[in-house]
């Protein structure tokens, strides 16, 4: 479980996040949605320690993360997996070595054990026979899947995904969404996903937090979102005619 308590973040005079509190539960896919510039990426960066919060606390299973310095956060970071928007695979390493990297860095597993784990993770994300491919040889969807395999390789307790569907076709987006959902449930991970993909919102979102102008504007489930009267959220979610017709049906 990850708990945010009154998080605020400014860039100079500009207020990016303002008094955000929320709880992201274990074994659930927690979605953070919002328009461009709403602060969701900054919030995620604060949660994983790439940015420091100005006010408030971030608790990982009641352990305060935000008050620690870089070296004190290292044990926490080993429990965190992250899937970046572009995959962030290491260009100089092939697929196999990318997935193996966190294992080589932080475990004393033998090469055979690491290979077994790598193959298991790649199989888990439905990737076969790409072990020796370079990241530049992979499609966008394959890169995301390798990034997920790398993120889950060290058995994380917390998984963060920053817009995992961006740049993917609808079918591949569904595959990635389903993978995130399955992995979250299977390994009882606390998963936080930044997205503005409406399919993800309706399909995999156990809990949805809507950010608007750096504030938590709304929070609820996928079912609630179809019935909400929150104007800003409705404007955001049901911007397209297709989404509006879905709302009418619902």
């Amino acid at each position, binding site marked *: 479980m990850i708990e945010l308590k009154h998080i605020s973040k400014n860039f100079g005079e500009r207020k990016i996040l303002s008094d955000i509190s929320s709880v992201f539960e274990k074994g659930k896919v927690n979605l953070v949605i919002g328009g461009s510039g709403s602060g969701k990426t900054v919030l995620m960066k604060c949660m994983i*320690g790439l940015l420091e919060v100005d006010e408030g606390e971030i608790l990982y299973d009641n352990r305060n993360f935000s008050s620690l310095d870089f070296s004190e956060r290292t044990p926490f*970071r080993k429990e965190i997996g992250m899937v*970046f928007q572009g995959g*962030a695979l290491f*260009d100089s390493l092939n697929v196999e070595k990318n997935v193996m*990297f966190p294992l080589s860095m932080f475990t004393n597993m033998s090469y055979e054990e690491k290979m077994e784990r790598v193959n298991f993770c790649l199989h888990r994300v439905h990737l076969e026979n790409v072990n020796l491919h370079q990241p530049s040889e992979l499609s966008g969807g394959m890169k995301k899947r390798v990034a997920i395999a790398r993120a889950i390789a060290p058995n994380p307790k917390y998984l963060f995904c920053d817009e995992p569907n961006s740049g993917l076709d609808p079918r591949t987006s569904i595959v990635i969404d389903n993978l995130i959902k399955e992995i979250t449930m299977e390994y009882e991970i606390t998963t936080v996903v930044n997205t503005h993909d409406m399919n993800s919102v309706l399909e995999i979102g156990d809990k949805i937090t809507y950010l608007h102008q750096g504030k938590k504007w709304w929070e609820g489930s996928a079912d609630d979102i179809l019935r909400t009267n929150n104007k800003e959220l409705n404007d955001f979610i049901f911007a397209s005619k297709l989404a509006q017709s879905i709302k009418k049906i619902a």
Partner: protein
Amino acid sequence: MKRMMTRPEKFSIYWKQFLRECDNFGYGSLGIVALVSVFTGAVITIQTIYNLSNPLIPMYSVGIVARDSIILEFSPTIICVVLAGKIGSNITSEIGTMRVTEQIDALEIMGINSSAYLALPKIIAAVFIFPFIILLSAFLGISGGYLAGTLTGKISSADFIYGLQYNFIPYNVQFALIKSFVFAFIITSVASYHGFHTKGGALEVGKSSTYSVVYSSILILIGDYMLTQLLLV
């Protein structure tokens, strides 16, 4: 710099990185270093012969001039400026691309000290390998001068070799090695700094690489003057 000087997460991984960088900087630079050294050595020799119009100046002084200018200045300084262009821009573009594609963020999230993991092996590898490159460059430069002088018949082999040996000061080689250590540190640390501070996209990576080469070249020239003033005069 302070964050970089921390205990490695896993020594074996850093050792592999160090060996990879040694290969990259050393073996990867051999071609350009050899080419520049041989031709510049040849040019220094031919130009010295061309300017020696006074019959009172012995011909073996061509060997002295070629030796001292190559050992004292050309190999440690000019080759390092060339390497600032080759290695420095390579380091900045590698780290800069990792920065803009969030690969450095990925390292940080895994709990890896990215500056130590990416920059430290490069700096140590450069400080270790540059002296060998500089010694090789000096050897090739003098060989190039010897070949250019003797094959064109402008100077005899005996005169050139006598000039090389005449009043040789071993400290000059030490001085060249000291310069190579300092310049290796300047090139890699400036390049790493610019790589880490890249923001934006491909255009900014290119700009960072250019700044890195410009600043390290300027620092090499300033460092060259200061070291000469401190250690030679």
